């Protein structure tokens, strides 16, 4: 067994997929040096034709990647900061994502957008701290948010092999994760399939990305008073509704911890779907960023707007007390 970091897992998946398929290549800002640490070492292994530094022209290099994907290549576009997804929303949501339908199935756009460091990393303030996975789930772009090193490897590999655009959000809060893994056992994780990170019988906590770790910690803290099941969807779109339904059959209670703004965030969708279609014995609850949150700079303010373990704890307790 080997200790593998989340960041190294992403880099390993990239290297393995580039070895496996010569049409896979990486482009983005400072990817040759590997400023984000994910692409470090790829230049030496695969050369400058497959590890391409771009000027600071996110909109053009995003659609450039789409053009190469239309011809059969499999680009992996790295964005250093999550807010660049706002700048390139037109190129992803309105161009890459719509080609298949608008051409009546003639075109496929197998492009992967990788954001290594989404969400708050403390002290990066308003324009570097968003975690906009719900936005892409809303428009229907396949979206994954891995929580563990093995899933970071497996979901990135699947994203690259998928024939549709996929956005891979690697939360800043998860990049430091390390796990003892069997490197030979690393393999693609299918899109749209969640996992029960911790079995339980009283309440299901749906946690995304770095909040899986928080949910596991809270579940452990509360183990003497409540049996918490932690469900990690891994892919937020398409969501594993069958997996969630099966969990709620066991528990009948639901709490979501979601690092999105509250209105129209993933948590809202999970609660709505569970309320419409699944077994619930008490009203579901969610822990999110506030409505319309812009993360302020000062550390205490930044933390104050992120979902916390304390909020999750009291929310679980409230759901357990509900009639």
């Amino acid at each position, binding site marked *: 067994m080997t200790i593998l970091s989340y960041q190294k897992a992403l880099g390993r998946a990239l290297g393995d997929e580039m070895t496996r398929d010569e*049409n896979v290549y990486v482009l983005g800002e400072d990817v040759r040096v590997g400023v984000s640490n994910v692409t470090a070492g790829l230049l030496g292994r695969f050369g400058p*034709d497959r590890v391409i530094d*771009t*000027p600071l*022209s996110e*909109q*053009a*290099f*995003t*659609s*450039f*990647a*789409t*053009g*190469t*994907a*239309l*011809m*059969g*290549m499999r680009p992996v576009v790295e964005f250093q900061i999550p807010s660049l997804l706002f700048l390139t929303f*037109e*190129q992803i949501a*309105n*161009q890459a994502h719509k*080609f*298949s*339908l*608008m*051409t*009546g*199935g*003639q*075109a*496929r*756009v*197998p492009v992967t957008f990788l954001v290594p460091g989404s969400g708050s990393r403390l002290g990066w303030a308003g324009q570097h701290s968003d975690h906009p996975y719900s936005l892409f789930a809303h428009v*229907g772009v*396949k979206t994954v948010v891995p929580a563990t090193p093995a899933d970071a490897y497996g979901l990135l590999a699947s994203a690259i092999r*998928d*024939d*549709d655009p996929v956005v891979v959000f690697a939360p800043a809060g998860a990049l430091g994760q390390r796990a003892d893994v069997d490197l030979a056992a690393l393999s693609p994780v299918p899109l*749209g399939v969640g996992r029960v990170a911790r079995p339980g019988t009283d309440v299901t906590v749906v946690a995304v990305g770095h909040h899986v770790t928080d949910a596991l910690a809270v579940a452990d803290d509360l183990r003497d008073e409540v049996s918490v099941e932690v469900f990690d969807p891994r892919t937020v779109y*398409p969501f594993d*509704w069958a997996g969630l339904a099966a969990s709620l059959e066991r528990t009948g209670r639901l709490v979501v911890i979601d690092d999105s703004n509250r209105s129209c965030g993933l948590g809202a969708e999970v609660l709505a*779907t569970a309320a*419409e*279609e699944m077994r619930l014995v008490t009203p579901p609850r969610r822990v999110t960023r506030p409505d319309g949150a812009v993360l302020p700079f000062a550390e205490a303010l930044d933390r104050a707007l992120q979902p916390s373990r304390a909020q999750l704890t009291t929310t679980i307790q409230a759901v357990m007390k509900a009639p």
Partner: protein
Amino acid sequence: MTGSPAVAADPAALYRVVRLIRRFEERAIDLVRSGEIVGGIHPYIGQEAIAAGVCAALRPEDLITSTHRGHGHVLAKGADPARMMAELTGRSTGLNRGRGGSMHAADLSLGVLGANGIVGAGGAIAAGAAWAASRLGGDGPARVAVSFFGDGAVNQGVLLEAFNLAALWRVPVVFVCENNGYATTLTVADAVAGGVCDRATAFGIPAVSVDGMDPQTVLAAAAPLVEAARAGLGPQFLECHTYRFDAHHTWEHKARPRYRSEADVAEGRSRDPLDIQGARLSDADRLVIDNEVERVIADAVAFALGSPRPSPVDALEFLYASGFRPRPGVS
């Protein structure tokens, strides 16, 4: 010299393309008025010389990206007028199976990577496609991509970024600006600081500006640019001065917005690419082509209106290339 020497040597072939686009557009406007085409179109009438001339300089394996005013480009690249008309009328036999319509007509088998509803969006896509096609083609001759856009697009940041990327990476792409003088209703004088060609030369891209009303002038200008791109000299830029004879969009036929004076329109329409190219043919030859085009267009309309409409059950078919079917809007 050109990819299609038969067309270059044969004024009749160029005339036929211009005539085909003209009649296609006129019949399409009829179908907008009769309600068979929903949502209207952006007519290409008056600008046909550009699509005809530029596409005559291309090889079958070359690529294009087009615009919201894209029927002419798609037809000139060889799309079947019948399947094109079926697409405009929302039929399952359409190029895009009725999923794209006027603004997204595409035929990837012909290298038509799609008309595009966002102004300036095609430039970076074309650059990427040309870069990838050359790379995937190995040692064979480069496949050239042409990105068509209007004068409005030269103020779009993403297009200027695409110029930079294409020049840096010596991508075999030819940027073709159809300068018809108006971005919807805004004149070039009120919209473009500096010159259109200056946009390209600022990035070291050779730029040529020509009369876009004469198909042979356009072809003569486009052919060396296409071959320069193919030879590895990097991106090229062609500005074609033209005039849109009809509305920005057929919506204008009812709304009648006033932004061009009658004198302006009359002057703009005084040079018609159909007449310019037609004058190079005998009346008899011209009549033969006109009659043949009439049959093609009549057949296209008949095919379109006789074709089945797609089933609403399949409205989201093709949304995901992987075949994933999303949840319906009601549970």
